[in-house]
């Protein structure tokens, strides 16, 4: 008797076949990775295949992998990660697809398949600069009108580039370069696996 997750993996393998680049189960979650050119047809199969039936796109987000593991990352930089839910089958799936060009990340849009992707893709475009081809209305969503840059990229400083203040001489709000220094109280550290174990060191 296969568990539910094994059934899901088996169904995915049967339905998608060669399109699967990576399929793994960790912490009770199934992660599927496909190439950008297979993204749209995979998404359509995931939604419509009678053994899969992922009716709902719960979440779509951009990820910038460039500083993963303090420079240990060698793959592509930008990915879009979707979380799908099937109401009728009661299972979940994570779908990851990397954009092929790090300098100009472009992915097909899934708005036509799941309408909820509309704002999620706008958000990923706003924060990471991933372009979604075929999106009906790809505007910025969370940042200010006229904002420059994509703030969630790892090379964007946490304090930003500009700050806003009221200028009493010009009698209006003006933008100027930031005057604060970014401050890090707790440094980011990655320890080796056995750190802190009994007998270590």
């Amino acid at each position, binding site marked *: 008797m296969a568990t539910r997750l094994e059934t899901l993996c088996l169904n995915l393998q049967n339905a998608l076949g060669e399109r699967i680049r990576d399929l793994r189960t*960790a*912490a*009770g*979650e199934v*992660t599927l990775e496909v190439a950008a050119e297979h993204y749209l047809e995979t998404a359509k199969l995931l939604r419509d295949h009678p053994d899969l039936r992922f*009716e*709902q*796109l*719960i*979440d779509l*987000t951009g*990820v*910038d992998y460039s500083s*993963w*593991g*303090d420079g*240990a990352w060698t793959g592509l930089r930008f990915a879009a*990660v979707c*979380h799908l839910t099937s*109401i009728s089958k*009661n299972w*979940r799936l*994570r779908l990851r697809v990397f954009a092929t060009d790090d300098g100009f990340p472009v992915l097909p849009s899934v708005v036509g398949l*799941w*309408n*909820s992707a*509309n*704002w*999620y893709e706008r958000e990923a475009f706003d924060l990471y600069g991933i372009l979604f081809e075929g999106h009906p209305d790809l505007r910025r*969503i*969370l*940042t*200010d009108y006229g904002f420059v840059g994509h*703030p*969630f990229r790892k090379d964007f400083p*946490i304090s930003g580039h500009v700050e806003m203040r009221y200028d009493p001489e010009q009698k209006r709000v003006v933008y100027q370069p930031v005057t604060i220094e970014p401050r*890090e109280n*707790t440094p*980011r*550290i*990655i*320890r080796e696996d056995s*750190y*802190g174990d009994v007998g270590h060191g």
Partner: protein
Amino acid sequence: MGTSAMAEIRNYTINFGPQHPAAHGVLRLVLELDGEVIVRADPHIGLLHRATEKLAETRTWLQTLPYLDRLDYVSMMCNEHAYCLAVEKLLGVEVPLRAQYIRVMMDEVTRILNHLLNIGTHALDIGAMTMVLYTFREREDLMDVYEAVSGARLHAAYYRPGGVYRDLPDRMPQYVENKFKNAETVRRLNAARQGSLLDFLEDFTHRFPTYVDEYETLLTDNRIWKQRTVGVGVVSPERALALGFTGPMLRGSGVEWDLRRKQPYEVYDRMEFDVPVGVNGDCYDRYLVRIEEMRQANRIVRQCIDWLRKNPGPVITDNHKVAPPPRESMKANMEELIHHFKLFTEGMHVPPGEAYAAIEHPKGEFGVYAISDGGNKPYRIKLRSPGFPHLAATDELARGHMIADATAIIGTIDLVLGDTDR
């Protein structure tokens, strides 16, 4: 009247918000109108964007936790819950059973708090002034519960990865006499507060069904309320799924989907409760769903109280790489002192990997997608807030309705901009 005269009529665009009492925060809604009929609604969000996800990348796993309270600032503990579940999933730590019961109980208290606010302000927005006075009366009692367990009325930071911060208190804070409250008022207010927190909460659960009946007397058969909500903002089950609706917005359309039942977390599989669903998918049905959810939440709270009375025990994991050791042993034991010091300076190390944890938040599915590269800080946190796709659907919900219905639709979405903008 010829066609040339008609052609001169142009659509009118108005700005709703960002400072509008019915916008529930800072929502800017650009409405394109044909007379009084909405042709297009374009919500502009982000005015409350604080980049919580980016901030989380520069803070340790524990330091991130209080930021979660500030997302949906009317259901604080539920946000923390999803975050803790995600971190626990990555770490693989077990949460003590008593902590799980406390979490479930506080989640349901939060659900009542959230729905009380929603129903009160929704009614206020569309003309029923009295509701908010009654619902805020009950919210006050539950805010006291929040304060008693965590020390804060709003931003609790009570759930921690591995359990909850401390056990439930044995006594409730008391009112004291002052120039605004005389001895008689103080005696009345303190009557239910003589015992422990559980006594106070149990007393509340006995009183609460009557209060819900009162709300229903005011609204459920109210002619004006029905005129404003029945048939407004109708969503079919198919559209609700495609638009990414969850929670009462999805159940109002008749889809029986509740994570507490379908994918139970903590001890929800031991709880007895019903999942209400609507029929027509309009604002009125969603109101009825929320009313019934409050009654069911009350039932769950009562079951948790019974269990918590009988079963004392630890409330946080004894894995001191994740949770701090007790104060006494820290003072007496070198090893515990080191654990304490390392935990609060460097923070815990979460093994590399990714996890998505979702809970049935009062507004829908609240999910936390955490990616760790093995560091003491998250590599990436994505917060899936339920209000985001709901607000994205405003255009579809409002199209063809009168401009006055815009407030009814915003009210029914149960919008909190802190949650939508993150």
